[in-house]
């Protein structure tokens, strides 16, 4: 027998416990803990299973007709999603008499270590392969491989020329300066050769850098565009679970970090290791004993740096966080400066900000003090190698061989050594920062790849059935919740006929806007289906649906641009006459032509330079320019004063005539002319009927209307002199 198991983790006494609640196909619900059955009953004995979220924990309880609510189990927040799923299955059984189990969901567990994957993460933070992530990041470089290879091959020229300078100097010192032999022409020849190689090297460097940088910028751009396109294809649930700041950071900042990685890797890291290898070979060739001496302090230095670096990073991170907090305070105060001033709280805000900046400055000061104490000794150890080379090398120049160091050494050789030391120590110093560099880069890469890999909850259809959007809109047993354990809509079943004007009413939070969101397929129902013209919305292209649907929200967002730009947003290929027609139908034309630049007038971001009524008229024009089959009005006139609302209502009445319209309105009087009203209560359909029918019924709608009338009467009386 098929079953669904919810594993809860708290006992009734709130102590940790391993318990399970099993819902079987026959409708039985059994709870067991530690191998003992605690209770068993049938879903038909209850009316609803409900999840209740507490603080840091939750509980699942059963409601039954004429009986007291009964707690079934308690759990920590780690179990709340599963509990919601359990309740949904039980409630479906209660409503329909049959069990519907969700498809076996792939368990979010790391295949390597068995740990559960973090929420919103598709990789295990413990087992992810840094190499794999790097490889994937580098795969974005494939289309530009020719440019990169070309720039890297030509890039060898400046690298080699840089390495030649110490050799020229050695020749100059050993053959001419030390022996005081040769003419000014010999010196000029060597200096000229040095200058020439430098000029050639720099020339090649500029040329190859341009090619290489162009390729890396293109890689970042591709990555950014791909991530942004992926975002656009997602349902609204992604935007609900991730903040705009988080998404913007992933698309802009994290891709920049990847760009820095590719640039650093391709230029500086390759440069450094090429120079290191060449310098090592040359030094080893001239004097292997002295070369090995260079590496003596390296383990000590790396040990010290690694040890202190972790501590310093933690401190710097804390400093960074306090800086970020100062920014947030400042941002908050400046944004709400009107309120601050109106309440006369300037002094209080100054204190709040200065306390944060003071703390920020103090942490910064402490960090600098610590840095100045810790790093001179590290610098000393690093310099020890150079000191040893100079000392022993100097001894060898003066006295010939010494202990194990038996080679003959000239001044030029010693100069060569000290010059190449820089090429050796540079990469070694950098190696200390390498783990941090790698960690930062892979974090950014994983964040970007998460966006790319995130599967949209709105699954694309292989062969979409793009039927005309003109038929009946049919809700069939729709359940939906933004959080699976908190259903907003429960078992909604209703048909909307073509051309019908439907008003959706109910108290705040009953799911009116959610119903509209589902109609627009911004989300898919958890169970049940919505069909238009007998076709499930999930079997259509979202683009096809949206092309035939117009929507006006309460606070419609207008983009920075002209009036014209904002109206054609609804139909990019609209003719200018269509734009005028839409504006006239929306009563927007008159105020547009009165502005200095007419339809070309630029409106600021969000349309903040316009009044509420003007913004709504523009959004109505934008919604109707494509002559949509279905028009959705989500509190389209609620934020307006009565006079403006009346004027907009007049244009809306004209537009909705004969067009399938679904409208939500706070003021019930605006829906009086609707063909039918759907009254929602606690997520379910409470009543359906015309305004007159529902008033006669004296149910919930009647109560809402009466409450609103009483309120208006009270306001009118208060307004009387």
């Amino acid at each position: 027998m098929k079953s669904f198991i919810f594993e809860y983790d708290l006992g009734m006494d709130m102590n940790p416990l391993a318990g399970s609640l099993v819902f079987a196909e026959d409708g039985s619900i059994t709870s067991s803990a530690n191998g003992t059955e605690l209770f068993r009953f049938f879903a038909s004995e209850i009316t609803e299973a409900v999840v209740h979220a507490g603080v840091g924990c939750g509980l699942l309880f059963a409601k039954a007709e004429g009986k007291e609510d009964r707690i079934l189990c308690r759990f920590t927040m780690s179990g709340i999603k599963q509990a919601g799923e359990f309740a949904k299955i039980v409630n479906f059984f209660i409503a329909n008499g049959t069990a519907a189990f969700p498809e076996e969901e792939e368990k979010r567990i790391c295949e390597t270590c068995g740990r559960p994957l973090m929420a919103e993460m598709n990789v295990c933070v413990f087992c992810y392969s840094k190499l794999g992530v790097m490889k994937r990041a580098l795969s974005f470089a494939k289309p530009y491989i020719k440019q990169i290879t070309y720039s890297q091959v030509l890039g060898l020229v400046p690298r080699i020329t840089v390495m030649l300078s110490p050799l020229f100097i050695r020749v100059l010192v050993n053959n001419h300066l030390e022996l005081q032999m040769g003419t000014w022409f010999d010196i000029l020849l060597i200096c000229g050769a040095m200058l020439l190689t430098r000029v050639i090297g720099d020339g090649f460097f500029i040329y190859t850098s341009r090619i290489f940088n162009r390729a890396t910028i293109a890689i970042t751009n591709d990555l950014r565009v791909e991530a942004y396109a992926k975002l656009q294809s997602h349902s609204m649930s992604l935007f609900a679970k991730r903040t705009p700041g988080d998404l913007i950071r992933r698309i802009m900042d994290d891709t920049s970090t990847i760009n820095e990685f590719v640039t650093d890797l391709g230029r500086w890291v390759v440069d450094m290791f090429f120079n290191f290898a060449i310098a090592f070979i040359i030094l080893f060739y001239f004097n292997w004993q002295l070369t090995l001496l260079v590496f003596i302090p390296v383990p000590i230095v790396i040990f010290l740096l690694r040890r202190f670096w972790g501590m310093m990073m933690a401190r710097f991170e804390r400093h960074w966080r306090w800086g970020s907090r100062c920014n947030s305070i400042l941002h908050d105060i400046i944004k709400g400066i009107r309120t601050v001033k109106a309440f006369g709280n300037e002094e209080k805000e100054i204190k709040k900000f200065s306390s944060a900046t003071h703390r920020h400055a103090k942490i910064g000061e402490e960090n600098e003090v610590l840095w100045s104490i810790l790093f001179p000794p590290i610098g000393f150890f690093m310099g020890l190698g150079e000191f040893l080379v100079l000392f022993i090398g100097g001894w060898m120049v003066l006295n010939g061989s010494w202990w194990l160091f038996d080679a003959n050494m000239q001044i030029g050789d010693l100069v060569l050594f000290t010059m190449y030391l820089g090429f050796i120590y540079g990469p070694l110093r950098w190696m200390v920062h390498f783990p941090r560099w790698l960690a930062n880069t892979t974090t950014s890469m994983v964040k970007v790849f998460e966006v790319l890999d995130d599967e949209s909850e709105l699954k694309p259809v292989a062969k979409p059935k793009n039927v005309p959007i003109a038929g009946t809109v049919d809700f069939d047993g729709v359940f939906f919740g933004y959080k699976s354990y908190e259903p907003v809509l429960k078992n909604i079943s209703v048909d909307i006929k073509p051309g019908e004007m439907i008003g959706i009413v109910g108290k705040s939070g009953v799911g009116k806007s959610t119903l509209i969101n589902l109609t627009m397929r911004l989300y898919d129902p958890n169970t049940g289906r919505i069909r238009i013209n007998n076709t499930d919305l999930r079997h259509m292209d979202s683009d096809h649906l949206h092309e035939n649907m117009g929507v006006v929200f309460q606070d419609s967002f207008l983009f920075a641009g002209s009036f014209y730009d904002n109206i054609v947003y609804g139909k990019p290929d609209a003719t200018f006459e269509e734009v005028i027609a839409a504006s006239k139908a929306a009563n927007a034309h008159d105020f547009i032509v009165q502005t200095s630049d007419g339809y070309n007038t630029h409106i600021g971001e969000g349309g903040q330079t316009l009044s509420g009524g003007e913004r709504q008229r523009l959004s109505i024009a934008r919604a109707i320019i494509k002559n949509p089959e279905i028009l959705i009005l989500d509190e389209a006139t609620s934020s307006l004063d009565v006079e403006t609302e009346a004027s907009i209502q007049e244009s809306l009445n004209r537009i909705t005539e004969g067009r399938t319209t679904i409208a939500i309105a706070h003021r019930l009087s605006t829906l009086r002319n609707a063909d039918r009203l759907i009254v929602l209560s606690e997520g379910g359909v409470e009543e359906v009927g015309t305004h007159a029918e529902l008033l006669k019924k004296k149910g919930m709608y009647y109560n809402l209307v009466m409450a609103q009338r009483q309120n208006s009467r009270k306001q009118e009386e208060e307004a009387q002199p």
Partner: protein
Amino acid sequence: MSTVDTNLDLGILDIKDVDFYTAEGGFMGVKCKGEDYKHVILRRIMPIEHPLAYISVADHENKEIGILRDVTALSEAQRALVEGELNNRYYSPTVMDVISVQDKLGYVYMEMKLQNKQGRIYDKSCAIKDVSRNIRTLGDKTVLIFDVDGNRYTAQIANLSKQSLKKLDAYLF
């Protein structure tokens, strides 16, 4: 200068009028002014500052019945019931020890030794996202930690060992 209207009815419950009990189904019920509410929800109005004062008592439809000004003023048996119910609703085990803290891919992975209200001590691993929001210091005494699942943990700075504090230090601000 007058302050807010003090005559406004705050709905403070007279403890003589209330009788809490555990209902058959496991929920807390209350008999108050002749009414019998079989499923009530208790909420702390100021959970941090006043965990046992100003407790909102609401029925199962979240309609407030009244506010309990001071739990400690109740009889011993009534107080035990109310405190028990609050402990059932507010689950925030105390952090006894921070075993390890690892920063990985923008998440902080923490292993802790916890103690719940009933005194049970156990180990727990959790992941914390966006640490600047989910590790919060209240004054200089308390740290609230929220994990990715929505669980919460409370640490009293004074009770943490030096080693635990050192591990947490980078995230406290």
